[in-house]
């Protein structure tokens, strides 16, 4: 029943999507658009929950459930299994598209009817494109005969709480930019006086905020589950989410200039188009099987061709439209370098340059392969030597930007304002280096910049000045903490990889780690070897007992390593148990990762700041309409 209902509603959503596309084209009555937008939302909700139901009750008559589930799987992973595979995740993608479609529809009123109709038409076009893709190449409701007794299981490396909610949050981010895209297309067609930027801003904020937390959760997963000791690997798939984030950041900031100065309008429209296109290209990279990673579910070339053709259509249409219709949004106003808008403009340029750099690094191996048939890989050294020098000045400016006023700012007054934060920065930097005692240029620069941001925003936070957006201050504070964590964990990381027998011990930093014994344990759907490590500090006091595992999942015949981590505000101790046997010993990897926790705290604070800003902007929108 559920598979049938799901499939039927998927087709129904195709109908409502097509219907909405055509009636918004005719700019018809509210009544019809109402039916279309609500019908689309409800049918895709039913479709999604039908698949969810199939996964929860383990209905193995559905191929998708058979391929990705198993009766012994814990409930949380039965649920996350819905989007842990290509077909199901497309269904989630469609659901999020229709939710944003509904929110665009909610903006509809008498004054903006033709503008919102145009946005709804574009959104319907995107939605229909993805529904067709799902139905034609990746229908999650495909049946299986004869019905199997049990499923093939779910990739154990994806069985992780952070990863269970990572895709939905990330999709809100990616897909949220579809609404921004639709609004900018409508703006290009528009000839009336419409406050389009105030419609666009809540969507940009939502997309950016959720993209931030989605990426952070992906990193959390990589850090805790992969057992490689790091949290960011410049993997093409990570880059695919990082690029829209960078452009989204630029977009968010330049929207403020549009709001306050009515300038940079064309630039904002172009950025909105490019951000969504990068989201779709990211989807293509991930889903076409053009490169391998944990995210590449699909290796069917027809899927790749479809998404590519759709991307070409969206990109070609929107960029040409921009070329022909953006003239009315161009202006020739010049900004003073030393002003708020000046700092935002520099931030914009730097973000776009970083994005282009990351894009080049990501697709360079593919271009080289296409032209010369050689395989190369672009890795961390490239990104470290290109991204860091561009992002450092951006962070420096970020600290002072919010304090500057619009128009021309008095340099001396500004200097007076920042004296307290300069002092705080110096003090905190000295304290940090007193504690960690490692001196490298990048380390010093990172720490100074982190405290520069943190202290500037702390002073703003306690100023109780209504002039500044509280959401912005909190987000910026989060960025400061994030930089602190990134610097600490990447510059001061210590790594020890050795072979250890039971009873042996090893020193890392000020800790002494004793390998006590190995136990065999049994989990809900796996067997594991569990190492017992006793961690002592330099006073011979027991800090913690760490128990990394080496798991075997018999159903999918996979091995995974579970790192065991002890976290406090200053550092993580991270132990991974590798291969081995009692006679020769086990390979043990131990990492000392300073300040990692601040990356996660920073990300959560950025998220909170984003949510606060979103609320403020939604209120503003309500008052104005």
């Amino acid at each position, binding site marked *: 029943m559920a598979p049938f209902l799901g499939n039927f509603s998927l087709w129904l959503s195709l109908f409502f999507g097509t219907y909405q596309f055509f009636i918004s084209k005719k700019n018809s009555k509210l009544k019809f658009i109402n039916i279309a937008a609500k019908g689309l939302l409800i049918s895709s909700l039913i479709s999604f929950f039908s698949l969810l139901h199939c996964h929860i009750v383990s209905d193995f008559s559905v191929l998708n459930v058979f391929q990705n589930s198993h009766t012994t799987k814990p409930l949380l992973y039965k649920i996350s299994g819905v989007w842990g595979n290509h077909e199901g995740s497309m269904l989630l993608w469609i659901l999020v598209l229709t939710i944003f479609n509904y929110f665009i529809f909610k903006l509809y009123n008498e004054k903006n009817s033709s503008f919102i109709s145009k946005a709804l038409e574009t959104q319907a076009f995107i939605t229909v494109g993805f529904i067709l893709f799902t139905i034609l190449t990746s229908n999650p409701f495909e049946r299986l005969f004869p019905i199997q007794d049990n499923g093939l299981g779910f990739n154990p490396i994806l069985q992780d709480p952070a990863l269970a909610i990572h895709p939905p949050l990330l999709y809100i981010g990616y897909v949220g930019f579809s609404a921004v895209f639709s609004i900018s297309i409508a703006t290009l067609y528009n000839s009336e006086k419409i406050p389009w930027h105030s419609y666009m801003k809540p969507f940009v904020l939502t997309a950016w905020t959720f993209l931030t937390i989605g990426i952070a959760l992906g990193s959390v997963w990589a850090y805790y589950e992969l057992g490689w000791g790091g949290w960011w690997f410049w993997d093409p798939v990570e880059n695919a989410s990082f690029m829209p984030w960078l452009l989204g950041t630029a977009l968010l900031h330049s929207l403020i200039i549009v709001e306050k100065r009515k300038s940079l309008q064309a630039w904002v429209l172009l950025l909105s188009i490019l951000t969504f296109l990068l989201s779709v290209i990211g989807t*293509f990279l991930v889903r076409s099987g053009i490169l*391998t990673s944990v995210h590449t579910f699909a290796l069917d070339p027809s899927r790749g061709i479809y998404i*590519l053709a759709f991307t070409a259509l969206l990109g070609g249409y929107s960029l040409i439209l921009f070329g022909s219709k953006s003239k009315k949004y*161009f202006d020739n106003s010049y900004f003073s370098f030393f002003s708020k808008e000046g700092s935002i403009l520099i931030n914009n340029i730097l973000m776009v340059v970083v994005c282009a750099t990351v894009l080049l690094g990501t697709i360079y191996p593919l271009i080289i392969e296409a032209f010369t048939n050689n395989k190369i890989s672009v890795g961390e050294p490239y990104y470290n030597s290109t991204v860091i020098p561009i992002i450092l000045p951006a962070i420096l400016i970020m600290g002072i930007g919010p304090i500057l006023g619009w128009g021309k700012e008095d340099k001396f007054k500004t200097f007076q304002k920042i004296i307290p934060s300069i002092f705080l920065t110096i003090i905190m930097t000295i304290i940090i280096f007193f504690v960690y005692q490692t001196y490298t240029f990048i380390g010093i620069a990172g720490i100074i910049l982190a405290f520069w941001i943190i202290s500037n925003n702390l002073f703003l936070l306690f100023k109780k000045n209504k002039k500044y957006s509280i959401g912005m201050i909190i987000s910026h504070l989060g960025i400061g903490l994030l930089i602190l964590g990134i610097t600490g964990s990447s510059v001061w990381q210590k790594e020890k990889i050795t072979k250890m027998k039971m009873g042996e011990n090893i020193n890392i930093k000020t800790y002494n780690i004793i390998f006590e014994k190995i136990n065999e344990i049994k989990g809900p759907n796996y067997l594991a070897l569990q190492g017992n490590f006793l961690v002592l500090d330099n006073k011979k006091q027991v800090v913690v007992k760490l128990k990394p595992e080496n798991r075997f999942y018999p159903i999918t015949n996979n091995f995974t390593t579970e790192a065991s981590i002890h976290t406090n505000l200053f550092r993580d101790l991270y132990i991974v148990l590798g291969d081995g046997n009692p006679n020769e010993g086990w390979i043990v990897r131990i990492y000392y990762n300073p300040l990692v926790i601040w990356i996660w705290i920073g990300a959560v604070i950025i998220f909170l700041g984003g949510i606060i800003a979103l609320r403020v902007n939604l209120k503003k929108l309500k008052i104005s309409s």
Partner: protein
Amino acid sequence: MNKQLIIIPIVIFSLILLTFFYLLSIERNPSNIPSNLLEKKVPNFESESLLKNYIFDSSKEFNDEITLVNFFATWCKPCKEEHVYIKRFAKEEKIRVIGINYKDSTKKTIKWLGDLGNPYSNVLLDKNGRIAIDWGVYGIPETFIVSSEGIIKYRHAGPITKKIYKKINKIIMEID
């Protein structure tokens, strides 16, 4: 902002899409890892043979016929899947099939070959994985084609599928 600049994103966008399209249209496998040993002599090694009582010396073994070298293990599930194709290769007259048993127990291997059939003219033991390191093996299973002059002509990482089976046959024809 200069309006002419809009041409830049359009050009970049088109270039990216064209590259992707080209890569999708040609036959390629992203998990295909290039081998540094291609067109080079097989690495030198000596090894015990599983069912015959003699020491296999690589410097004397690869100079009269085309050889397929297959790294396998009983604990490796995909090895079971590709076994049918290894058997098919064994039936062909032009080539000799050698198996290298990677980090495995002798007892289990004998049982495994007994159950599934033994396509290998010789099974060499690589108990500590040294031979695999010399050959640059990335993961089990992995298959190499060595010409009658002892030159490595082809490497495939992962199980042999129908497509790869056909491809290897084509390569053998070409070398021959």
